[in-house]
C-alpha cells in the first residue's frame, strides 16, 4: 500500500499522455470484453441444448412426417416421450412481416419440457386450440396483448375451407427460450406456440396428420446417439425415411453453420490486446527511462531490486487493471450494439449477457499485459549502475 502514492504520482506525471494511454487500453479491453461476451453467448446456446433430447425430421428432403410415426418411435428402447410440432409459416400484414407459429401436441410437454410453458399454459392451450402463447420478445415485436387476434396468412388453400388466413387468439406470454433471447431478434427468439389440433381440425384433409418434426426424449444422454441410430435404421425404408440428431449437436451445428463470431472472437480479442501491448510497454519504458535518477535514489536509500520491481509492475498494472474495468463496462454497451446489428441483419444469434468469466479474463489479461510491459524496463533497471544513474551519466 505504501507504494501506491509513488505509483499514483508517477502515473500522472504527464496527465495528457496517461489519459490517452488509459483511453486506448479501455477501448482495447472493450473489444476484448465484447468478444468474450459473444463467445460465451454462443457457447451458452449450445450448453442450453440437451443431449437427451432428439430432433427427428425427414431424411433426404425437407418434407413432413406423418403423426402416425409417434407410436413406433415411443416403443423404441430408451425413448421416454415423443412429441410433434408443425411450423405454420406465413406472414402478417404482408410478406415483409413473416411469422411462424409452432403448433405442438400434448406429447411435447414431456418430450420437450424445456419449452417454457407452465401447466396452466398447457391447460389453456388445450381448452382453446386456436390460442397461442408468444415469447416475450415475439410479443414485444408485434405489440400484441392478451385477447388480441393475430392472423397468419399463408399460401392459398392451406385450410380445409380453401381460405388462407389462420386467426389465432393471444392467450398469454411465455419467457424467451433459453439462449436465444429478446435482445437479438431472429426466428428462434420469435417463439409463438399454438395447438396442433387447430391444424388437424381446420387444415386441408391431406395435410392434417403432418408434423414438421418430432421431438424425442431419451432416458439418458449417453443413449442419445444409439437411439438416434436405431430410429434412422427402423425408418430407413419408410416413406418418408427419418433423420435424427441430438438437440445439443444440432445446436452446435447451428452455431457453426453461419459466419458466426464464435470461432474467431477470441482471435480478434487477442489482436486488440496485442495492439495495445506495445503502447503499454512503450509507456512504461519511457516512464522508467525518464525516472532513472529517481530509481537510482531509491536504490541508494536501500530499496532492493525486488521492491523496485514491484513498484514498476504496479505502475504498469494500475492503468491496465483500470482500463480492464472501464473496458468491460463499455463492452456491455458494445454488446447491445452487436445485438442490434444482428437484428437488422437476418442472422439469428444468441442472447448476450454480462459474463463474470469475461470480467475475470479481462483482469487476467490486464495483469499479463502489465507483466509483459514491465519486463524490458525492469531488465534495464536491474542492469543499471546506481552511481552512474544518480550522476546522470546513464
Amino acid at each position, binding site marked *: 500500500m505504501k507504494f501506491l502514492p509513488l505509483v499514483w504520482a508517477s502515473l500522472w506525471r504527464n496527465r495528457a*499522455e496517461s489519459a490517452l494511454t488509459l483511453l486506448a487500453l479501455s477501448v482495447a479491453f472493450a*473489444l476484448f470484453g465484447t468478444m468474450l461476451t459473444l463467445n460465451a453467448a454462443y457457447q451458452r446456446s449450445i450448453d442450453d441444448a440437451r443431449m437427451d433430447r432428439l430432433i427427428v425430421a425427414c431424411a*433426404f428432403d425437407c418434407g413432413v412426417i406423418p403423426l402416425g410415426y409417434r407410436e413406433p418411435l415411443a416403443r423404441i428402447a430408451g425413448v421416454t416421450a415423443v412429441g410433434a410440432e408443425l411450423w405454420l409459416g406465413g406472414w402478417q400484414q404482408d410478406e415483409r412481416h413473416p411469422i411462424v407459429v409452432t403448433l405442438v401436441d400434448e406429447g411435447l410437454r414431456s418430450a420437450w419440457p424445456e419449452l417454457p410453458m407452465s401447466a396452466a399454459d398447457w391447460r389453456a392451450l388445450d381448452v382453446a386450440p386456436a390460442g397461442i402463447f408468444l415469447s416475450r420478445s415475439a410479443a414485444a415485436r408485434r405489440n400484441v396483448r392478451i385477447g388480441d387476434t393475430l392472423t397468419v396468412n399463408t399460401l392459398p388453400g392451406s385450410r380445409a375451407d380453401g381460405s388462407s388466413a389462420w386467426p389465432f387468439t393471444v392467450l398469454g406470454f411465455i419467457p424467451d427460450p433459453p439462449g436465444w433471447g429478446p435482445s437479438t431478434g431472429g426466428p428462434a427468439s420469435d417463439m409463438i406456440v399454438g395447438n396442433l389440433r387447430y391444424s388437424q381440425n381446420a387444415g386441408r384433409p391431406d395435410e392434417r396428420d403432418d408434423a414438421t418434426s418430432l421431438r424425442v426424449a431419451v432416458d439418458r444422454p449417453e443413449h442419445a446417439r444409439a437411439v438416434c441410430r436405431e430410429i434412422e435404421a427402423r425408418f430407413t425404408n419408410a416413406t418418408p425415411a427419418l433423420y435424427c440428431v441430438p438437440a445439443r449437436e444440432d445446436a452446435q451445428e447451428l452455431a457453426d453453420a453461419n459466419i458466426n463470431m464464435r470461432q474467431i472472437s477470441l482471435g480478434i480479442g487477442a489482436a486488440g490486446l496485442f495492439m495495445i501491448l506495445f503502447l503499454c510497454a512503450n509507456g512504461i519504458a519511457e516512464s522508467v527511462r525518464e525516472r532513472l535518477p529517481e530509481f537510482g535514489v531509491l536504490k541508494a536509500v536501500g530499496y532492493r531490486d525486488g521492491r523496485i520491481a514491484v513498484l514498476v509492475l504496479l505502475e504498469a498494472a494500475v492503468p491496465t487493471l483500470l482500463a480492464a474495468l472501464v473496458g468491460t463496462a463499455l463492452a456491455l454497451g458494445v454488446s447491445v450494439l452487436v445485438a442490434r446489428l444482428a437484428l437488422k441483419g437476418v442472422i439469428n444469434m444468441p442472447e448476450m449477457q454480462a459474463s463474470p468469466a469475461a470480467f475475470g479474463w479481462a483482469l487476467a489479461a490486464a495483469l499479463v499485459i502489465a507483466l509483459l510491459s514491465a519486463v524490458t524496463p525492469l531488465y534495464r533497471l536491474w542492469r543499471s549502475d546506481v552511481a552512474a544513474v544518480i550522476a546522470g551519466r546513464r
Partner: protein
Amino acid sequence: MSELRQIAAVCLLGISGLRDRYATALVVVVGMACVVGVLTSMLSVTAGLARAYLRPEDATRAVVWRGGARFDQARGLQPDAIATILDAPGIARGTDGTPLADAEFLMWLPPVVGFADGSLQLRGVGPAGFALRPDLRMVAGRPLGAGKRELLVGVGAARKFGLGVGSEVRLRDGAWPIVGVFSCGGDTMESYLVGDALTVMAARRRAGFAQVIAQLVDDRAYPEFQRWLTENPALSVYVERKTDYDQRAFGIKTAFFTRMAYLIGAIMALGAMFGVVKIMYGSLRARAREIGTLRAIGFGATPVVVSVLAEAALLAVIGALLGAATAWLIFDGRDLWVWGAFRLRVSPSLWALGLVWALVTSILGGLFPALRAGRLPPVEALRVE
C-alpha cells in the same frame, strides 16, 4: 525557400529521425497492422462469398419461382408450369434450338458421417443446367450419364465431406455412386452434389422444382419476360433478375458479419487513434528542439504541421501494408465452408480499404499533435529539455 520545398525538407528531417525513435514508431506500426489485419481478415470472408455468389454471367439471367417461394429448397413448380415458363419470350436458345433455361431444385441430405457435420445438398439439374454454367469443368471422372442413378460432386463439397469418384451417397432409394468431380470457377455450384433432375426426383418420390433459371437474349429482354410470366393467368410465379437473387442470398448470408467487421475495425481504429495521439505527442516532445530551430531560422508553421501528419501517415501505411500482407499470407485462398464452399479472398480492394482505414485513423490521431507543433513558439520549443 518555397513552402513546398520547406514541407519536403521538414518531412525528410522528421522521417530521418525515426531511427532514433524506432520504439515509438513501432507502436504505431504494430497498432495499425493489428487494425488492418483484423479488418481485412474478416472482410476476406465477405469478398470470398461475393466471388462465389455474384457472378458476372448472371447479369442477363432471370429466376422464376412459384408465387410465394423465394428459396432453393422450395418445390412448388410443377412440370406443366415449367413447360409454360419455357415458352416465355426473351429466352436465349442453344445451338440445337432448345431454350437455355433449366428447372432445378435443391434437397438436403443426411450427413455422410456423424450427426450434424455440415449440410450436404444435392442439386437436381437438367441438360440446360450444364449449358448455363460454362465454367463447369470435370476435374476427375466423367460427366453424368443420361437417366442414370449417379452423381457428380463439386470440388468444395468433395473437400468438405471427403467425397470423390467411387464414393457413394445414400439417397431415398439406396446408395448412388459419384462418377465425377467438377469445378465451376468458384461458383456456389462447387458446394453441391449434382444429379440429373428427373432421375433424382423419381428417387426422392416428391414432385416439384424450386426454380427455373433462364438465360435471356440480353438485358433488355427482362421486362417483357417478367411481364409475360406474371400476367399469364395459367401461372402463379414470381420473377426476379438473377443478380437480384444473388444479392438477396449474398446479403442474407453476409450482412451481420460484414457489419461486425466494420464495427470491430472501427473500435480497433479508435484504440489505435488514441495510441497515435499519444505517440505523436511524445514524438513532438522529442523533436521540440529541432522544430524550434527550424521555426527560428524561418520555416513556417505549415511545413511543421505537415511533417507531423506525414510521419503519422507513413507509419500507418507501413502498418497497414504489414497487416494486409499478414492477412493475405494467412487467409488468401484458404478454403472455408459456411453454407457452402468458398475461398477467402484478400482482394486488392481490401488492401486499398486497409490503407485508407489506417491513413484516416493516423491523420485523425496526428491532427492535434500536428496543430500543437505548428503553434509551438520557437523560444518555448528551444527550451524543452
